[in-house]
């Protein structure tokens, strides 16, 4: 029997999280590189199994128990452990979402296994699978291999694979419902309703031009400089997480995994080093200009235009030039 890759898709309140398509693409790529069989599993929302079955996968499992809703790490880990006991997989692949981060280390530990988390790619090196992940906030990359027995667990960072490249199947894959039994007392957490903090006052997802500031802005009073540039460009002001944590800009201006994900025509990053958590929120921008005094800042890896220098030297003349250009002189 061929080895199996199991992609566990993510659902929220019964809806498929779109990032799951990326994970399907990743699973299809690994299957193509290894010759292993690709299967998928939906945990706790059978309704979306059919949607997943339309993709090129050998089979879709709908793992079911009334105790899987609402999400708890205890129930998800217990359900998947039970499932994997009965349906062994060589490799289990998931998206690196906040939900997966919450339960997959527990699941792997309960099975005496390990997770290579937050991967951005994989390689098949002469029959040995290695997973590429970013280290040191993206300054370095590492190829990591499993030295333990299967099942191996790997999670992929948002945007590592193209969701729209997930191949459709010739015909719908069979869907098998697997009921799991989660004993009383397993679930210890009592989650309340999911809510959104104060209405999002600013919708940066629609902005065509974004000027974003990071730690390099140094002091709250310097934010005004970035604001002037944003105004001159007719764009919106945004920030990396530390700026919002410090209260220098409101949380609804935050770009990144815990904030908004944007794809403007122009993203101008001032003093942003480019930690992974920030980059996942803006790497889809059509053009990225980065100003940073650290020539090794990871933001330059994804910048179209790089300016290594002090933003306080560069921004004032830039504001003037932009104003001049707008005035048509």
């Amino acid at each position, binding site marked *: 029997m061929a080895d199996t890759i199991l992609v566990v898709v993510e659902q929220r309140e019964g809806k498929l999280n779109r990032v799951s398509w990326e994970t399907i693409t990743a699973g299809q790529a690994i299957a193509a590189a290894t010759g292993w069989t690709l299967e998928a599993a939906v945990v706790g929302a059978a309704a979306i199994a059919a949607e997943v079955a339309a993709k090129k996968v050998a089979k879709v499992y709908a793992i079911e128990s009334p105790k899987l809703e609402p999400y708890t*790490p*205890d129930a998800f880990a217990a359900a998947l452990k039970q499932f994997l006991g009965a349906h062994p997989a060589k490799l289990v692949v998931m998206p690196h979402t906040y*939900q997966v*981060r*919450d339960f997959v*280390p*527990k699941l792997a*530990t309960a099975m005496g296994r*390990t*997770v290579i*988390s*937050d991967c951005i790619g994989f390689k098949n090196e002469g029959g040995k699978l290695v997973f590429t992940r970013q280290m*040191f*906030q*993206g300054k*370095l*990359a*590492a*190829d*990591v291999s*499993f*030295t*333990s027995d299967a099942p191996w667990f790997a999670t992929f960072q948002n945007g590592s694979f193209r969701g729209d490249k997930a191949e459709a199947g010739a015909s719908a894959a069979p869907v098998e419902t697997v009921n799991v039994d989660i004993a009383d007392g397993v679930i210890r*957490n*009592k*989650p*309340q309703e*999911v*809510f*959104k*903090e104060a209405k999002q006052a600013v919708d940066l997802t629609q902005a*065509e*031009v974004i000027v974003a500031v990071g730690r390099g802005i140094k002091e709250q009073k310097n934010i005004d400089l970035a604001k002037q540039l944003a105004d001159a*460009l007719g764009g919106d002001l945004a920030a990396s*997480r*530390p700026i919002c944590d410090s209260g220098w800009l409101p*949380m*609804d201006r935050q770009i990144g995994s*815990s904030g*908004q994900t944007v794809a403007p025509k122009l993203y101008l990053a001032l003093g942003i*080093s480019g930690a992974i958590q920030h980059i996942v929120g803006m790497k889809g921008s059509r*053009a990225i*200009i980065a100003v940073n005094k*650290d020539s*090794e*800042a990871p933001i330059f*890896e994804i*910048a*179209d*235009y*790089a*300016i*290594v220098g002090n933003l306080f*030297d560069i921004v*004032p*003349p*830039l504001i003037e*030039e*932009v104003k001049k*250009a707008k005035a048509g002189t």
Partner: protein
Amino acid sequence: MKILVCMKQVPQKDAPLKLNESGTWIREDVSYEVNEPDAYALEEALRQREKHKGEVVVITSGPARAQQVLREALAKGADRAIHLEDDKFVGLDAFNTAKAFAAAIKDEQFDLIFTGLQSDDYGYAQTGVILAELLGWPHATIIMQIEKTDGGIRVKRELEAGYFQFVDMPTPAVLTIQSGINKLRYATLIGIKQAKNKPLRKVTLGEVQPAVGENLQKIEKLYVPQKTKKTEHIEGAPGEIAKKLVDKLRNELRVL
């Protein structure tokens, strides 16, 4: 409340990193600092102790240099520290680091264990959750608020895209703390003085060795990432750079 805070020493954010000869780790001669989310975890523990009394203990693993993280934590107000001291701890995977921690605290009874939500070096975001599972405790991740309740605690979890959720849970429990949950304090001069006399227990690799096994995963190769994007460097005096940029904005990006 008796709270343990797991802290890690990591290379400074803007420290230039060099690969070691075998290309499997960085050269150790860089400047280090406390992992940022761990600083927030410590701050939260100190605030909880101020509200509910109790004790804050900090723990780290790593070579002698890592003690600096504990000294800073003691200066900020932690009561005592545990240092798993050995160069080899740096190379342990998250599973074995958690095992070593669990072994080092087996005679203690904590109500809560805090970790930062992830480290700035490996970035696994796993050690806290693994530790919870090894101890048989419940956990919650990416926490932005903690309130004591009658039966345990109520925490506020950060979800993605601006969503949050309150979770009620029993203690003892492990929580991974998100940056920005609070405002960090500075160590006071008196705190720094007092820190010198606070207890710091050293744990050798030998003491926890029976609990630690082979790593379950291995870094085959560490390297500078290959650029996938063509980046154009714009150089010159600030005024020139500004002019060149405006030209790009107008003629190439067409946003002006």
